[in-house]
């Protein structure tokens, strides 16, 4: 599909937006003004829905154990590669489309959940009672470990999802071109987010999670299995991340082991902008970051995209550290 793509020599510089830019270049052809703006909006919302999924994972884990799980973005990468392995190496793409897609989503989600549980049990659990610094450094180490292990397994090269798996056709809504893939991916994201909200607001386990976000000891005294709920949060976070990883693969086609770094950063930014611990906030934050990125790329230049995103992060934290929609985390003294 997209033929050229340059990766800066430093692995970490990988820009997720390379094919994004291409799409925008496509969109620019001929259309100006309002049409152009709407076109960027469509792209921004699609990408934003991926960010929102990862941000949701950040927010759930942070809400419960106050840990920025730096590995969250890298879990997306793991999910993307698991999906790729299934579709390409195992030849799932020869199955009927809907079946292939279901497997390509469900298996990576489960696999990544297992990975994240292992991380929790092995690395974070022993440190939960220790200093914040120790656990943050460990989380950072985990992110590095995931990246480099993925490089070891899947290699440093860029891999491609089957390009013709999904139809590249779409339709015009006025001047705006919307592809079926965009619609489908945004729909799946919304579905997952909706399921998550229903789960957390509507079920007993979800209520236990919210209780834990306020006070661990009190929750324990009420008979809540605190360790079990923490594990559940890690499973949910990983599943959301993996789903977004597979979606990224399907949307951008090309994936590389470094894609988690910037994805994670942008998603974290989204979670903070929405107010950490705040679930609707994380979703809105993800959409905002997606839009911001799309408009910056379209109107300014893709080169400045991350400068703008981080500039917004720093500004929000200075002006309103609790995020635009208010955080839902009990204050510690």
């Amino acid at each position, binding site marked *: 599909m997209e033929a050229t793509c340059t990766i800066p020599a*430093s692995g970490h510089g990988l820009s997720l937006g390379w094919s994004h830019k291409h799409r925008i270049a496509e969109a620019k052809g001929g259309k100006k003004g309002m049409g152009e703006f709407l076109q960027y909006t469509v792209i921004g919302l699609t990408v934003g829905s991926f960010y929102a999924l990862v941000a949701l994972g950040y927010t759930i884990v942070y809400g419960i154990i106050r840990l920025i799980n730096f590995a969250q973005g890298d879990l997306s990468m793991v999910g993307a590669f698991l999906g790729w392995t299934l579709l390409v190496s195992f030849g799932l793409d020869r199955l009927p489309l809907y079946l292939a897609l279901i497997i390509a989503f469900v298996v990576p989600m489960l696999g990544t959940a297992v990975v994240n549980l292992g991380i929790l049990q092995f*690395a974070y659990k022993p440190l939960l009672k220790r200093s914040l*610094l120790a*656990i*943050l450094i460990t989380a950072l*180490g985990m992110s*590095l470990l995931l990246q480099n292990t993925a490089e070891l397994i899947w290699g440093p090269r860029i891999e491609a999802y089957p390009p013709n798996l999904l139809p590249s056709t779409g339709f015009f809504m006025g001047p705006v071109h919307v592809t079926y893939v965009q619609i489908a991916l945004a729909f799946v994201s919304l579905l997952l987010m909706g399921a998550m909200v229903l789960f957390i607001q509507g079920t007993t386990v979800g209520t236990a999670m919210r209780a834990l976000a306020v006070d661990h000891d009190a929750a324990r005294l009420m008979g809540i299995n605190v360790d079990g709920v923490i594990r559940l949060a890690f499973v949910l976070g990983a599943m959301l991340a993996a789903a977004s990883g597979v979606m990224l693969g399907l949307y951008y086609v090309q994936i590389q082991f470094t894609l988690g770094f910037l994805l994670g950063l942008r998603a974290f930014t989204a979670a903070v902008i929405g107010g950490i611990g705040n679930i609707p906030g994380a979703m809105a934050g993800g959409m905002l970051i997606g839009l911001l990125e799309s408009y910056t790329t379209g109107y300014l230049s893709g080169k400045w995209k991350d400068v703008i995103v981080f500039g917004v992060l720093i500004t929000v934290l200075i002006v309103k550290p609790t995020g635009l929609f208010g955080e839902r985390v009990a204050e510690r003294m």
Partner: protein
Amino acid sequence: MIDRLANHRVARTYVATRDQLARLPFWVRVIVILGAVGGSVLANGDDYVTAVGVSVATYAMLGLGLNIVVGYAGLLDLGYAAFFAIGAYTSALLMTQAHWNFFATLPLAVLFTGTAGAILGYPTLRLRSDYLAIVTLGFGEMTRITFNNWDYAGGPNGILQIPWPNFFGYELNTQGDFFIVGLALLAVAMIFAQNLDHSRLGRGWVAIREDEFAAESVGVPSLRLKLFAYVMGGMWGGLAGAFFATRIGAIDPTSFTFQLSVLVLIVIVLGGIGSLPGVIVGALVVVAMPEVLREFADRRLLIFAVLLIGMMLVRPQGLWPRIRRKPKPFYGLEEEESEDVADKILREHQVQMEERDRRHAAAGRQVPQRGEALLEVEGVVQQFGGLRAVDNVTFEVYRGEIFSIIGPNGGGKTTLFNCITGVQKPKRGKIRFDGRSVVGLRPHVIVSRGIGRTFQGIRLFKQMAVFENVMVGLYPRHRTMTWQAMLHTPGERNDEVRTLQESRRWLGFVGLESVAGRLATELSYADQRRVEIARALAAHPHLVLFDEPAAGMNPTEKLELVGIIRKIRDLGITVVLIDHDMSLVMRVSDRIAVLDHGVLIAIGKPAEIQQNPLVIEAYLGREEDLVEEQAEGA
């Protein structure tokens, strides 16, 4: 093992040398050891080894800078490469575009990085430490991308052909030259870092790491100290960057990625967070390991990731841990007779008070005399959600009296203290101290205005010795400047000795001189409260607020406490106290205020309060409250 081999001549020499070294001052040791290492590497003459040595020195310098931020101030900085980049680009641009001498570019490189650190740090250092980690990470990426997009600085190609440094006509162009310069910079960095660690700044940083809220409340300007560490660390990064640029001769944005920030973090985590020799060990591992284990060089990040996690889990103190000096209280100070101590404190305190009063009078402010209002609380309201914790409270505290605030639990007493000390900002109302409003000031500013406090739940610095806790209380009264601390000048030394002397006097004042060297947590509950009192007094306050000082004390200890409170009043310090022990409050207070559900229901002399029907109702009218309260008080 060394001892077992002590007969062996080599071992004997080693032990003797080690002991001799340990007796030398730190700066001599640094110069001797770095000189010896440098000499042997240069004598070896292998260019490759020397080149590795230069890299180790560069990483060690970066590590020392980051160590001030992470190790001393406890702030996780994940964008440290940004400072390295700003320093490198500043120096390289000045050398290539303006043809400056390398050494002339250094001050500007340091100045620019320091400015960048201050601009980023000032608004963001108030944030939670985990947010700060992300903000710094973002800053690192922004800086790299900006250089990458900046055409004047060569864009992605960077700056090429950076000239060699010229040192008074001598061109430094061999690895050996750079090694010498690198070691010299490293030695300076180590000596400065060591001096800072053992100055009042170091003490302030430890206090902030342990309990930022308590540190701020006893007068440590926490934001300023954090900013200082951040800017300081950034400046070292800038210096290292300038050195790196001229040594490599060409820089581009890929030299300053997130990966570099992480590598420098790994240097200090491996070596031991906060440990100076640890930084060198860490730099050796990070630079030399991929050189030695060539076949694993491609996998070095994987290995580092495993090491990073493994260290945190198994050996969080690092390979060469920071050794906390065994505190020697009052080492080298002459003995003082205990009767003298009380006199000295009295004299010293009176001098301080008079000086303050004179200053205030000179500034045209009215100085409250004995018996006049020192603290005026007027219509103060504090609200949490729908709950009015303090509801329109008005009273005055007169200079020189002991004033108690009593009332059932949840009456708003501690909230009122928090409003007075600047921990919370009242919703409405005025609070004036010495005739000046203190509403909206940061807690440490209020301490320096002359209000000290203790806490309901004890908040001592647990990893510090008792006398160090009191020395933290003396923080606002230091006169030393930072540069003096860095150079460990005679002025700074005198100031430290004076601080030590005074902390001893205050400990003597509360009767704890004999346990000065113990860790604060080793003391009994009652003694910990007395340490808190000494820490609050050390700042020479005009007014002290004691929040339930008698909680958890037995009758004998309470009796002693009454004695201490009276002694404090006799120094001329006004005392405001919250307590539940009626007999203590009635015995010691000149006047009493009663708060119930945030409302002031009575104020007056102890005898009047005992007769007041409202007070009796608040306390005795609802018997179940009293029972609960006693249960909680115990």
